[in-house]
């Protein structure tokens, strides 16, 4: 086996081992950070301490391996794919691996966040190193027994072999291995020798899911727990004046009514009674300022776009000069609505606040941050707070925010009872942390048939694009390039929504280039490839996307989709985008049924480096594309007088089975470290569909959702 050199990470500071009292070996490790010098893993498996280690591997006497997976599972499949990395380097058969949720987390989880499609990317090296180190310790134990040099040993699926035909199972040497020093400088496998990485491995929770086992926060219950239904200000910007709870308190099963801040919680013995109790509350609300509506916010965003109060995030060359010297300037405005996350599992959280400690249990993408916020809110020592994660019925960014966990903690503190806050769908949709409404104005200057300048202006609600986004394509490809942002401050809460900012920016940009190609009368693929050509060999370190990788996915998508030769009645639209470290190209195919565009198929080409688990990866890609198509087509969400107009699925439209396109996925073969998949296939989907609708109906779309804005005419010149 050819070995690759490992990085210089010191394994010794990340890993500690112990011999288990019941037999077997326990390896405790911390991803991305060193273990404290004084801590040791427990000798009793029931006492796993996730305060000191954020993950464990147990190797039993019979050779069975149990991996306590460290990351929260929101449906991206990391509970399966991260243990695959350990098992690969440990060199055990996947059939002998059991994956258990690393249940009790708390303080020391560094990257215990599911968001930004980063889990696999960041775990790629450390998880493999951990597996490889454990394997080396087992080899060292066998070599000691055989009295030979460890280099004379190899492993095969949980068995150590020496040159003389002798074998020892991992289980036979764990007792010794646990007492050995932790080796340094471990080599990792050459990707061509992978046996587990790259194979289709089913979701490790599949049996529990298809039989309806208790897994989610919504399912969590404890003895003496009360259910809490919370009445919140119905409009953003309102405060509670008075509340009459007399009709609530007479309902059988209602335990108590708890006021906290501007909210009122009804506590009851079951969920339904709590919800009924909430409906019976009679509250009066007031507001100090005018309540906001989407129409006013849209006007404010337009005013910002047309104004001159911007923060410049990137400026190359001289855009002003390029525009002044242009033969022609093309300017387009793109508009998106607010969007709710609508996780299928409504927000919920359990809290038990006592004098001794604060126990929190539920679906959360950010347990460590939430524990800190709860400690601050309740003025408690952070050491007294524990957060246990359940499986999550979707996240999409909503569960990065622990507002519901804070509510639970506050209610439990006042009520002095273990309680679980349960949102109704109406609560979930009307007390959200929404994708902000955004408008983009994109302008390009044309001189002698060439794009000489590109100016993107963003007007968004509450916050603007961040980080490296201004350095994504077409940064580096156009000499005079500028990104300016401005924001409107609203009382409507906004936050991350699957692929923040790029989820809409990609639509704007990839629609713009498509239209630009039409105006310049050049091939729309060639226009993109020519721009990428200019980025090759760039010395600008801010540019994160690879022009070669983006070019490659574009070319493969052209090939796989039969671009330009679709059969009659099928209209194709193209889009390519880089975000979350992953390069993606998509071709949407639209047909007309009764003159209405129907998205039949999306061909999706993805370069995400090594594909760890193709079965799970394709699921993410299919979901991301259909989610992108669905929200671009139907996602229509607005506020009137501070309240969301839609509150449930009877009026709010999500894409359904009969509307979902078939997604055809192609991966680029790669040895490069894996990158995220939870987000990057969503952003290109909207533009691919819009460009296909342009081909089908001649209508250029500038505003989402498409079904509502199909009549939009080309604005400006």
């Amino acid at each position, binding site marked *: 086996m050819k070995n690759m050199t490992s990085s210089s990470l010191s394994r010794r500071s990340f890993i500690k081992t112990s011999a288990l009292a019941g037999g077997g070996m326990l390896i405790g490790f911390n991803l991305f950070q060193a273990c404290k010098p004084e801590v040791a893993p427990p000798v009793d498996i029931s006492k796993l301490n996730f305060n000191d280690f954020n993950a464990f591997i147990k190797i039993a006497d019979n050779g069975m391996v149990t991996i306590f997976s460290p990351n929260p599972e*929101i*449906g*991206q*499949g990391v509970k399966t794919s991260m243990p695959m990395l350990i098992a690969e380097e440990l060199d055990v058969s996947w059939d002998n691996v059991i994956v258990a949720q690393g249940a009790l987390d708390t303080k020391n989880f560094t990257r215990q966040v599911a968001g930004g499609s980063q889990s696999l990317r960041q775990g790629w090296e450390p998880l493999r190193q951990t597996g490889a180190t454990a394997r080396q310790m087992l080899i060292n134990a066998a070599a000691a027994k055989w009295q030979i040099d460890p280099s004379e040993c190899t492993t095969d699926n949980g068995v150590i072999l020496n040159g003389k035909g002798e074998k020892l199972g991992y289980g036979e040497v764990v007792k010794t291995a646990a007492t050995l020093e932790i080796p340094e400088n471990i080599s990792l496998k050459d990707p061509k020798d992978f046996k587990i990485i790259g194979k*289709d491995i*089913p*979701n490790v*929770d*599949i*049996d529990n*899911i*298809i*039989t*309806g*086992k*208790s*897994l*989610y926060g*919504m*399912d969590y219950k404890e003895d003496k727990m009360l259910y809490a239904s919370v009445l919140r200000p119905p409009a953003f910007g309102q405060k509670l004046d008075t509340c009459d709870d007399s009709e609530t308190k007479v309902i*059988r099963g209602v335990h108590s009514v708890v006021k906290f801040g501007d909210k009122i919680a009804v506590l009851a013995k*079951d*969920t*339904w*009674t709590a919800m*009924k109790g909430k409906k019976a509350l009679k509250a009066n609300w007031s507001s100090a300022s005018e309540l906001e509506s989407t129409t006013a916010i849209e006007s404010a965003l337009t005013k910002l776009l047309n104004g001159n109060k911007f923060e410049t995030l990137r400026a190359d060359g001289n855009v002003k000069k390029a525009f002044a010297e242009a033969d022609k300037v093309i300017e387009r405005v793109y508009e998106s609505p607010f969007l709710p996350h*609508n*996780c*299928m*599992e*409504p927000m919920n959280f359990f809290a038990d606040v006592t004098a001794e400690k604060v126990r929190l249990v539920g679906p959360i993408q950010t347990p460590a941050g939430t524990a800190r916020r709860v400690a601050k809110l309740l003025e408690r020592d952070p050491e007294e707070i524990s957060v246990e994660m359940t*499986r*999550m*019925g*979707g*996240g999409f960014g909503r569960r990065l925010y622990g507002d519901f966990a804070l509510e639970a903690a506050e209610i439990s503190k006042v009520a002095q009872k273990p309680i679980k806050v*349960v949102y*109704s*769908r109406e609560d979930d949709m009307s007390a959200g942390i929404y994708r902000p409404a955004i408008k983009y104005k994109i302008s390009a200057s044309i001189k002698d048939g060439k794009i000489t300048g590109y100016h993107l202006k963003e007007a968004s609600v509450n916050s603007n694009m961040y980080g490296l986004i201004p350095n994504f394509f077409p940064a580096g490809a156009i000499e005079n390039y500028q990104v300016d942002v401005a924001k409107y401050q609203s009382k409507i809460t906004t936050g991350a929504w699957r692929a923040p900012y790029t989820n809409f920016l990609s639509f704007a940009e990839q629609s713009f280039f498509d239209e630009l190609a039409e105006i310049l009368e050049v091939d729309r693929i060639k226009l993109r490839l020519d721009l990428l050509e200019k980025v090759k060999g760039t010395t600008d370190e801010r540019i994160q996307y690879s022009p070669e990788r983006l070019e490659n996915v574009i070319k493969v998508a052209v090939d796989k989709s039969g671009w330009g030769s679709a059969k009659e009645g099928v209209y194709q639209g193209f889009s390519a985008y880089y975000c979350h470290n992953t390069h993606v190209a998509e071709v949407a195919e639209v047909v007309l049924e009764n003159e209405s565009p129907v998205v039949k198929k999306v061909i999706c080409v993805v370069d995400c480096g090594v594909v760890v688990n193709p*079965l*799970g990866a394709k*699921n*993410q890609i*299919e*979901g*991301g594309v*259909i*989610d992108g198509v669905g929200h671009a087509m139907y996602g229509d969400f607005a506020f009137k007088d501070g309240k969301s107009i839609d509150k*449930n*699925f*009877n009026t709010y439209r*999500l*894409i*359904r*089975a*009969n*509307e*979902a396109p*078939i*997604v055809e996925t192609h991966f680029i073969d790669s040895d490069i470290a894996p990158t995220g998949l939870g987000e990057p296939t969503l952003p290109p989907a909207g533009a691919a569909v819009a460009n296909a609708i342009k081909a089908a109906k001649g209508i250029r779309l500038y505003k989402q959702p498409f079904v509502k804005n199909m009549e939009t005419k080309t604005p400006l010149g």
Partner: protein
Amino acid sequence: MPIYNLKVNGQSHSVEADQDTPLLWVLRDHLDLVGTKFGCGVGQCGACTIHLDGSATRSCLLQVSMVDDMEITTIEGLSKDGKHPVQEAWKEIDVPQCGYCQAGQIMSAVAFLQQNSDPNTSEIRDAMSGNICRCASYNRIEKAVELAATKIN
């Protein structure tokens, strides 16, 4: 408070609840059968789908007083060991992402295949359109129903 006799997954239960309590919450909070999920409460998402005398029904809209003595089947009672052909198909295709809606999807698929054991693609897509999957695992749901049909036949 009135007492209702419920027959759930072949077992009799006597439940004390207000007459307007939806069956969903009786199953989840009173009987600890949490496989049936709460998604919207207005019969729009299908997460709470159960079988009532063999027909797929939204349990969030069904008052407990209306189901006295009827045969109720939930995901927990669909098979003894998770080996109903539809569950097997769901496993083979590896359908779930977050998994929250999948019990409801499976219950809808089972009832649909009892009505139409040899459906075409468009019939499957229409039949399954009452169940929302926010992760959009729709391609796999479609494939799994197709596969389940071949297993049943």
